[in-house]
């Protein structure tokens, strides 16, 4: 959704900024329920018998999978070719996937803290 706003900005329309803002708020509201699932996955990741980096990679992978399922549920009734590049909605999916990867890359320290806290709780 944010991508649509960016397209408007690139096409030279100032109204794009407002569209960008509203779409951003809309996207947050729409994906808010996913937080419940994401928190559970994050908790599970801290309990896996693997090294920290491996747990982290697993978490990012599961988040991408959640994204896939989210787009499959929300997007497939609208467009059956959602996961193919010919579909315009597929850009949303790829945008989300890249965002998850980037978010993962910048939140490794946070994940480390989460793991340390969990291990302290265990002790």
């Amino acid at each position, binding site marked *: 959704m944010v991508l649509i706003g960016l397209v408007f*900005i*690139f096409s*030279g329309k*100032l109204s794009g900024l407002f569209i960008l803002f509203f779409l951003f708020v809309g996207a947050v509201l729409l994906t808010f329920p996913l937080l419940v699932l994401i928190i559970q996955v994050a908790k599970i990741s801290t309990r*896996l*018998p*693997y*090294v920290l*980096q*491996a*747990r*982290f*990679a*697993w978490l990012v*992978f599961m988040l991408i999978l959640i994204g896939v399922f989210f787009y499959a549920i929300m997007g497939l009734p609208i467009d059956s070719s959602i996961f*193919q*590049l010919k579909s315009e909605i597929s850009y949303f999916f790829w945008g989300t996937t890249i965002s998850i990867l980037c978010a993962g*890359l*910048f939140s*490794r320290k946070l994940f480390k803290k989460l793991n340390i806290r969990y291990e302290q709780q265990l002790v």
Partner: protein
Amino acid sequence: MEKKSSNIILIITGAILFNLLFWEEKLAVNTLIFDIFILTAIFRIYPTSLKNNTVKLLLMGHLVCIAMIIFHNTLLSKIAFSITLLLLVGFSEYVHRSAWYAGGSVLLNFVLFIAGFFEELQKRKQVTNSRLRISRIMRFLFFPVLLCFIFFIVYSFANTVFADLISKATLSIREFFKHFFEVISIPRILFLLLGLYITGSLLLKSKFDYFSQRDKQHNDNLERKRLPRYIRINKPLYRFSMYMMGGFGKGILALKSENAIGIASMLLLNILLLLVNIIDIKYVWLNFQYSPDINVSNLVHEGTGLLIVSIIMAMLVVLFYFKGNLNFYQKNKWLKYGAYLWILQNAILVFSVFMRDYYYISQLGLAYKRIGVLFFLLMVLIGLITVAIKIYYKKTSYFLFRINAWAGLIILTLSTTVHWDEMMAKYNLAHQNSVTLDIPFLLSLSDKTLPMLHEEIEMFKQQEELQKKPQDENDMNCKTCYVEILSKRETEFFERENKYSWLSWNYADQSVSNYFSGKSGKATSLK
């Protein structure tokens, strides 16, 4: 470390092989090549697994399935191949006795593959100890790129020449990516990743052996347990019986009360089922006469529905009463007789449904669900026999599920040796004078039946003339234009086959191709 690094190499090799063998191909001879690679890799990584008798038996079943993929190339053989491969992996990598738990372990392999793969990579990374990390570079670049982006938007609004310049640059970049993705397609890269995921999940054992541990905790034989009251009262089944029986469920009278209730339940259930069975024997076994007024389809479906409910109830009732110490209660003789009779009556019910299915087939010919019912009845019969064995030899529910899973697996493997579509077409066409032919169904069967259907082209023409309505003449989706549909299917078969390479070779398709090549020279030879 050397072995660990070779695992990674094996996984990557498998992913590349998967990509080369299966991209835009169907499962056929390519499956055999990939399977040889996977099995060799598994037995190399886990060499002791070959000493396991279960693995040897599973391997035999798996080889039957792969042979059937090349010979019949049916969907059933492909499903059976996948299931046997997954179980073979489960039994090779973990210590298991039950196929259910082995399946759980393989599922964990798939769920935790990413973690396992990255751990392997991490170990390799520690050896190379590279200091140059992509994430560090990206962190350094984040703020400058963000700044650039903001100023970029400001300048593009402020300066039209700059905006023009940017739009030209954007076009060039778009063109570049367009050509780039023509050479290296994203679907192909994703397919490679899928190959990596599948190969890795098959070869890499997960570190979380939850199902293996659970499997070890179970026994085939029931043991008498004397649990302290404070543990017993927290068990859900105990609470349920307390709720049902009240004061009778407590203390030393508990078993006696449970036995009495069990006998009463078995007696009532047996009387009820006896009535149903007498009606079935009288009307379905002995005096059944087909007339067009009887809807045979409903007759079978109702019977099967009843059977499913009855069997599930029978299993639950028997499992409830024979869950624990009642098996060792000395005066449980009548309860056991009641259970055996209940099982026998269910077996009679199985035969009643079999008779219904038989009438159905003799009137309307063979079809998927009608054959499916026969397999279901066979599984039910095995289930009933194993329940009787469980009671007689004081076995656990674990034993019951374990044995039934193996029985199911054997039936699945054996069922792949028959080309059911071919059999259905052969039977229905051979009995076309006595059964009502469902021509749209015949025309929907797999490609292997095309030669057989082609031989009956005169019959299709006659049926078409009889059934065709005037409005069908101009209808694009004419359902009674049987000859046209058959001809279209033959053309589509060759169009499809010409797209495949030798990797998709299988005997079934080759025989169809040979038939048409010999018939009219219409067919182009398969690659």
